[in-house]
C-alpha cells in the first residue's frame, strides 16, 4: 500500500499479522543481546527485543499494515516497509506513540533531494538531524527545554536512535560498510529536537516550511555536529546574530565553504531580545543571509592557502537564499547560548519537511 494513511490510534484498524520478517529464538536476554551485537544490528548500546507483540503494537498505533511501503531508497532501490521500521523503532526503545514520528522521518529521508545514500555514505560523517513540530510533541512527551540539542527526553532520544538503526539495518549504514565517515559525530547516535512553539511568538519551523501552523511535522537535515556559542553581553538582535554568523563563517573556513541548509538553535534567553525588538524568524534569516559570507582568500589564514587558487577575492555565501536557514526555538530557560548546526555538504542534500501522516511520493 502506498496511499496516504492517517496516523493515530483507532479502534477500527487492525494491523495484520507480521508474516514477513524471519523469527529468531534465544534462550535468554543475554544471548539475544550478544547475538544482535555480534551481527552488527545495534549501535553498541543494548536494544529492546523486537518481539512480534511489540512490533505489532507500533503498527497498530499508526494504523499501518506491516507491508505498507514507507518509500524506496532512490539509489539502491531498497523498499522500506513499515514492519522493518517498526522493528528497529522497538529496538531503539520507542513506544508505539513514537512510531509515527520515526515513520515520518524515514519518509522524509527517502525524498530524493535528501540524497540519503550520499549523505550516509560520505566521509564527511554527518548525522540526520530530526526536528519535530506540532501537537505530537506533547502527545509523546518531548521536551524543548533543558538539554534540547542533547538527550532531553525519552521520545527524542529513542526517535533519533531509531533513525540510525533503520539506516544501519535496512541500508547497511554501518561503520566501514556504507558508512564511510572519517570521524562522524555524537549526533549519529541520536539527534532529535522538539521545537519550543509555546514560549515564543515565532512561527514554528514546520509552519514556515509547509504553511500549516497546526499540523505535526518532521524536518530532517543531513547535519554536522552542533557548534555551541555564547553571547550574554548584548540585547541587540543584530549583535547576537553576529555571534551566530561568526560561527557559521568559521565553519565555512574550517570545514566547507559551500552554501546549504544551516540550522540555528536559539534558546529563550536570547529569543527574549528578538521578541522585545520585534524580530521575526524571517528577519533572522535575512540578517544571516546578508552577513554570513566569506572570501575564499580567508582559507589562506587557516592553512588552506593551496586551495584558494585564483578565486581569493570571490565571496561565498553560507545560504543560497534566506529560507535555507532553519531557525529553531529550543533550549533551557537560562543561558545566553546558541548553536549552529552546519550542513553536511552544501546543497548536495536538502532539508525535507513532511507532515506526520502524509505520504510525499504517492
Amino acid at each position, binding site marked *: 500500500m502506498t496511499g496516504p494513511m492517517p496516523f493515530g490510534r483507532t479502534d477500527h484498524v487492525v494491523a495484520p499479522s*507480521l508474516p*514477513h*520478517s*524471519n*523469527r*529468531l*529464538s*534465544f*534462550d*535468554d*536476554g543475554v544471548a*539475544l543481546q550478544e547475538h*544482535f551485537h555480534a*551481527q552488527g*544490528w545495534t549501535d553498541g548500546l543494548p536494544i529492546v*527485543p*523486537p*518481539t*512480534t507483540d511489540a*512490533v505489532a503494537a507500533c503498527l497498530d498505533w499508526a494504523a499501518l499494515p506491516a507491508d505498507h511501503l514507507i518509500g524506496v531508497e532512490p*539509489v539502491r532501490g*531498497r523498499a522500506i516497509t513499515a*514492519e*522493518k521500521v517498526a*522493528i*528497529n523503532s522497538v*529496538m531503539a526503545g520507542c513506544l508505539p506513540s513514537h512510531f509515527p514520528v520515526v515513520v515520518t522521518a524515514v519518509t522524509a529521508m527517502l525524498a530524493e533531494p535528501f*540524497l540519503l*545514500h*550520499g*549523505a550516509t*555514505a*560520505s*566521509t564527511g560523517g554527518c548525522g540526520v538531524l530530526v526536528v519535530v513540530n506540532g501537537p505530537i510533541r506533547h502527545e509523546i512527551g518531548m521536551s524543548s527545554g533543558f538539554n534540547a540539542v542533547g538527550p532531553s527526553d525519552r521520545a527524542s532520544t529513542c526517535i533519533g536512535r531509531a533513525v540510525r*538503526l533503520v539506516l544501519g*539495518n*535496512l*541500508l*547497511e549504514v554501518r561503520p566501514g560498510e556504507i558508512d564511510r565517515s572519517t570521524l562522524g559525530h555524537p549526533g549519529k547516535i541520536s539527534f532529535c529536537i522538539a521545537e519550543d512553539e509555546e514560549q515564543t511568538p515565532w512561527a514554528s519551523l514546520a509552519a514556515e516550511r509547509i504553511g500549516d501552523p497546526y499540523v505535526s511535522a518532521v524536518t530532517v537535515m543531513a547535519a554536522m555536529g552542533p557548534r555551541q556559542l555564547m553571547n550574554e553581553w548584548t540585547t541587540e538582535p543584530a549583535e547576537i546574530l553576529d555571534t551566530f554568523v561568526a560561527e557559521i563563517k568559521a565553519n565555512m573556513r574550517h570545514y566547507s565553504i559551500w552554501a546549504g541548509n544551516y540550522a540555528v538553535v536559539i534558546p529563550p534567553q536570547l529569543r527574549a531580545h528578538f521578541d522585545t525588538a520585534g524580530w521575526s524568524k524571517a528577519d533572522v534569516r535575512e540578517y544571516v543571509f546578508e552577513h554570513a559570507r566569506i572570501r575564499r582568500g580567508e582559507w589562506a589564514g587557516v592553512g588552506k592557502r593551496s586551495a584558494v587558487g585564483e578565486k581569493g577575492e570571490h565571496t561565498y555565501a553560507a545560504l543560497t537564499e534566506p529560507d535555507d536557514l532553519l531557525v529553531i526555538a529550543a533550549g533551557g530557560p537560562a543561558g545566553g547560548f546558541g548553536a549552529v548546526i552546519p550542513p553536511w*555538504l552544501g546543497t*548536495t*542534500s536538502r532539508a525535507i519537511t513532511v507532515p506526520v501522516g502524509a505520504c510525499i511520493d504517492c
Partner: protein
Amino acid sequence: MTIEVLNPTYDEAAGDFTAAARVGELDGLTIGIVSNGKHGTVPFFDAFADELRRRSRVAEVVRVIKPNYSAPAGDEILDDARRWHALVAGIGD
C-alpha cells in the same frame, strides 16, 4: 524462557554480481573514464589515461565527470556510456 524476536535487517538477499565481460585487447576501442569530480581524481585519471594511450592503441579515451560526486551518474552519462567499449569508474578524495 525462550525469547522470540523479529529480524531487523533488510530481507532481500544481496543479488549476485556478475563481472562485466572483459574486452581483452584495447586496440581500437573507446574507453570511458567516469570521475566523481573530486580534486584527487584529476591527476590519478590523467595518469591512467596516459597509461592507456601508452600501452595500447585505444581509439579514444573519453573523460566525464559526475555533476554531483555523492550521487549516481545521471542518464546523460549513462547514455554516453552506451557507445563506449569499456568504462572505468572511480572515486577519489
